[in-house]
Every structure is written in C-alpha cells, then in structure tokens.
C-alpha cells in the first residue's frame, strides 16, 4: 500500500488503490489526483479520491486564511471552491465530471 509522489506520476504508477500523497495544491499534485480519479471505479478507490480532495481543500482553506496578496487569494479561492465541487462529484461517483473540472482549474 504505497503512496505515490506528489511531483507527477507516470501512467504505470497510477494505481487507484494507492492514496496520493497530498502535501500541497501544486499542478503536479492535482494532475496526480486527476490521473487517479480517471481510473477509479471501486468504492474504496472513490473514498481515497475523496480523502485526497479533502486534503487539498483543507490546505487551500488554510492558505486562504493567511494569504494577503489579493491576486493569489482569488486564485486559491477559485481552486478551493472548485475542489469542493470536485469532491462532491467524486462522492457521487461522477469521476469523469470531477476530472474535467479539476483539469479546468490547472
């Protein structure tokens, strides 16, 4: 049960039974999560994806509290809101829609 790195992952390393290591909300982390969402089908996979998006939402939420730069704050706020929606889409098993939404936020 290994975790995948947060700096991008090759297609061979995408395993929906693995939890993506979420320590930031970088484009690489989001691409990693998207790649895993696209191959997630089972109940357990969707739970892991939901947990990963929860982690991204949490981190963006913490940043929003402290970010003073208005431009950056707006960008993080968009991502924060988008991840919330993607999270709910994954919870509803709408993985295609979730992946598309996250891709639009990159």
């Amino acid at each position, binding site marked *: *049960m290994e*975790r995948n790195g947060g700096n991008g992952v090759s297609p061979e390393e995408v395993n929906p*039974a693995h*939890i993506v290591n*979420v320590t930031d909300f970088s484009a690489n982390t989001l691409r990693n999560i998207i790649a895993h969402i696209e191959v997630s089908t*089972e*109940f*357990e996979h*969707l*739970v*892991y994806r*939901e*947990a*990963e998006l*929860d*982690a991204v*939402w*949490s981190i963006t*939420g*913490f940043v929003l509290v402290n970010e003073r730069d208005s431009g950056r704050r707006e960008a993080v706020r968009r991502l924060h809101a988008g991840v*919330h929606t993607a*999270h*709910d889409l994954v*919870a509803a098993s709408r993985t295609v829609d979730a992946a598309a939404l996250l891709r639009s936020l990159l």
Partner: protein
Amino acid sequence: MLASEENELLTRTDAGTPAGNYFRRFWLPVLLPSEVPTPDCPPVRVRLMGEDLIAFRDTNGQVGLLDEACPHRRASLFWGRNEECGLRCVYHGWKFDVNGTCVDMANEPAEYRFENKVRTAAYPTREYGGLIWAYLGPPEHQPELPKLEWARVPDSHRYISKRWQETNYLQAIEGGIDSSHSNFLHASLDAFRVTDSYIEKVKNSNNLRAKYHVMDRAPWFTVKKTDYGLIIAVRRKAEEDNYYWRLTQFLLPSHTIIPYQKGLSIHGHCWVPRDDHGCWVWTVSWNPDAPLSGEDWEMIRDETFVHAKVDPATFKPVRNKENQYMIDREQQRTANMTGIHGFASQDQAIQESMGPIVDRTRERLGTSDTAIIAMRRLLLQDIKGLLESREPFTARHGDVYWVRSASLLLRRDVEFDEGARELMKAEV
C-alpha cells in the same frame, strides 16, 4: 468535508427521517436485562431515536416495548401497573399486553367497550446475547438478529455496559473507527514523548499495541468494503521486514470490533441513537475461549479502558460534562494527555466537546481520515438506497456479522486481508 444536506441526512434519526428509517430496519440493543429484572417488575422509560417508550416484563417473562403515551388520553404509562400479563394505565385503567393490544378498558361500561379495536404502538423484542433488543421498523421487513460472536459466548465470557453520551451517534462511531487519535487522546505523556523509559517498558511486551503503537504515530489507513460494512486497516512500521496491522471491523449500522490480538480479550461497541443529540453507547468485552480474566475485571472495575461507571438510574456517566469529567490538571501536566481517567471518559469528553451534532461543513480532513470518509459514504449509500426502496443487505443477512477483528504482525509483502484471513474468522 461533508455537505450540509448529507450531514442532515446522516444525523437525523427520528421516525420518518431517512436515517431513522434505515436504523429501524435493524435489531438494536435497547435494555440490559437488569433494567426489567423480574416478571411484573416496574416499567422503565426508554428513549430511542426520538421516540419515548416504556418497557416492561410481563407475568410470563416477555418484554414489551410500548409507546409511553396511553392512546386514551396520552397519560404516561411509566406510572402504570405491571400486572397479570399487561401494563395498566393508572389514569382510567386501560391495560395493554406486550403486543400493544388493549386487553381491558376498565372505565367503560361493558356495552361501550371497544378494546378489541384499540392498540398502542408496540415493538417486538428479543433477549439475545445478554441484552434485550428491539425492532422498530415495519413488520414485513423484520430482519435477522446479527450473528455477533460476543452474543454467542457464555455469560461468564462477556461483560456489557451501557452509557448515555450527549452527542449524535455519528461522531461517536467516528471516534470508534479513527485509530490515529489513540496515539494522542489515550496516551500517557511518556508514550506521547516516546521517552527512553517508555520504550524500555514496552519493547519486550507481548501486547502488540503497547509495543508498536508509539513507534509510528502517522499510520497508513486503508479500507475494504465487505458484506457487513468495512474493514478499516491501519498499518504501522514495525521491525524492518514487518508491518503492524490493526484491523477494526465496522458492521452496519453502528457496531465496531476493536482490533483483537489472539489470546487477549476482545472489545467492541454499538451506538444506538437516543435522539439527534444523544446516543446509547453499548460496550462489550468478551473472550471467545474462556471466562473473562482477573485482569479483564480489573480493567472494567478501574474504568481504565472501554467501560465507564454510570448512574444506574439514568446511565449518565459518573465522569461527565457537568463535573468536567473529573479532570485532574496536575495529572495532565505530569502523566497523561488529558488528565481524564479512562479511555471511555476521554472519548466521551472530546466527542461531547464537538457539540451535539458536529458541523461537518467546517471540517478540514486529510488522508488520515480515510476510515471516517468511508464509513460516512457507506452509511449514505445504504440510507439513500432505502429511499429508493433498496432494503439494506446486512439487516437481512445476520450471518455476515460472524467475524472478528485482528491485531497482528505481517511481513511487508503480505496483503492484510490475506494475512489476517484466518484470524478474522469467528469461532463461537
């Protein structure tokens, strides 16, 4: 995070609510036999999922569970007389048997009596596994009793306690399946700080939890969906070639079995909604192979682990919110994380501090919360399924509850479900 609508869906269990209808599809523990100890003993109040009920043991020893309000003028049957195979309302003498049938309308002239047309709400009960269970759902969907191993061992192998927790049931279950909090909430200061003296004390322990829990405080969570609910598998690093696995069983709608190491006793819980702001915590300790040991009884008496002393009339814990769980700040400063005695009271204190119903829209979850996320999704799936007329599988298949948890070391190349397969089979 959880959307507000989903939080409402999960947490409201009154009659007619989706989660209320779901819970009512299962047999639920409702009374200790000691609450209605003898035929014709006094009736007792029982509050379940927002319903105020009265339980009584009739002359034949059967337990009735009726609506508290007499259908005549809504007087409370708590004041009733338990006599000659029925409970008689003391206001006008109407009497009801355990099935809710009115068997006497003492105040009406004979020619005006219509007792054969009068019923009060009554729920079937069963005595099973040292408890009294009730089914509050539609008669045509009455399920099987769950084949829980603890319900099948002899009385001498089992101890059950009941307490009232002033929170919604859901955050109580979440506490029960969240293994990572035990490294903090239940830790001694030595364990939390991983002192040399603590390492020395546990390094040769036969108790795997004592030995490995402190070594890795950021465990890996994974879950596996099963017929009965979930296996929540938590992995910690052990020796170089091993992992220490703790496998908790979550069984729908609200049972858990704490990870069990062969040779020790097993513990588990069931949380039953009292109403939206309170739940009954049923805690069981059992040994499948032998009567409970002296050490087990000491842990129960001293409240060091999962049981807590309660007021026998109300089941409110002795350590409670009003007395701040009898916190000892000096002990918190010098000995353990909380200054509160016993795992049960520590859990209750922290869960009650979250409010009667947690506002889950304001959570900040991470990947270590995987078990909680999985449990919520599973419950939501079942609750929404029932809204679409899909009856819960687990309720109708009592045999799927016949499992154990596990606490074990496995080689790092062994998957937990394979490596623990034999250990997780119940035997009694």
